[in-house]
């Protein structure tokens, strides 16, 4: 089964709790990875679980808990913005780090 279908089945079967728990684990993993991983390039991998997994799942759980309406749509938009923003930020920080290193070597 594809993971998209798995996520939908998870949400339908278990309600918001599995989403919230998985999202919180993603956020905690990001925080731990930021502390534990050595060097800037490895540490940048720590952003993704928070941006692409943690924040959207927490926003989805809150939206389901809120019920149909504009408030739920707002939470989903916030989740989407965090995902896109986090991903773009990772790329931007990585590129800036490389350029700064090249500048320092000259």
């Amino acid at each position, binding site marked *: 089964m594809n993971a998209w279908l798995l996520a939908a089945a998870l949400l339908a079967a278990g309600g918001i709790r599995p989403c919230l728990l998985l999202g919180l684990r993603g956020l905690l993993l990001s925080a731990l990875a930021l502390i534990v991983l050595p060097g800037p390039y490895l540490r940048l991998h720590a952003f993704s679980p928070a941006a692409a997994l943690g924040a959207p799942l927490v926003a989805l759980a809150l939206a389901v808990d809120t019920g149909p309406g504009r408030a739920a749509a707002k939470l989903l938009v916030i989740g989407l913005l965090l995902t896109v923003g986090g991903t773009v930020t990772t*790329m931007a920080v990585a590129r800036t780090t490389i350029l700064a290193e090249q500048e320092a070597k000259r």
Partner: protein
Amino acid sequence: MRTAVELLLWWGVLLLLNTVLISSVTPLEMAVGGGIALLAAVGAVAVRHASGAAPGGPTRLAQALWTFPWTLLADTGRLALAVLSPRHQRGGFRTVRLAPGAGPAWAAALLSATPGAYIVDVADAKKGAAGSLTVHALGCEVSALERALTGDAR
């Protein structure tokens, strides 16, 4: 014609975003939001044209979207392993050659959204040649998403 469609799309998205994020939807709010969204849309189109940015071709997009959730979960597991065990705290740069027709912009965004890799440089496709991405990858495994983007059927 294409610019008008792009302008309309930007305006629609921005107005929708404004409508979702404001606290109360009144005709005045909508009128002001519509005007400001139009101004912002004109700015967005101008900036996009000036930068020459483009999403690129849709080749392999469906396969990439299909494999993305598994890659996200698998790479999250690999990151957890790296957090728990210093032996797995390895990474390095490598070049990913995209399948011909695959858009470097969306491919870079999808790859960077997974914990296993992020993009540091993009070489656009020139005259039919495939584009390539310089990525920093966690470990040396090639993810399902990367295989989908490169067209590697392994």
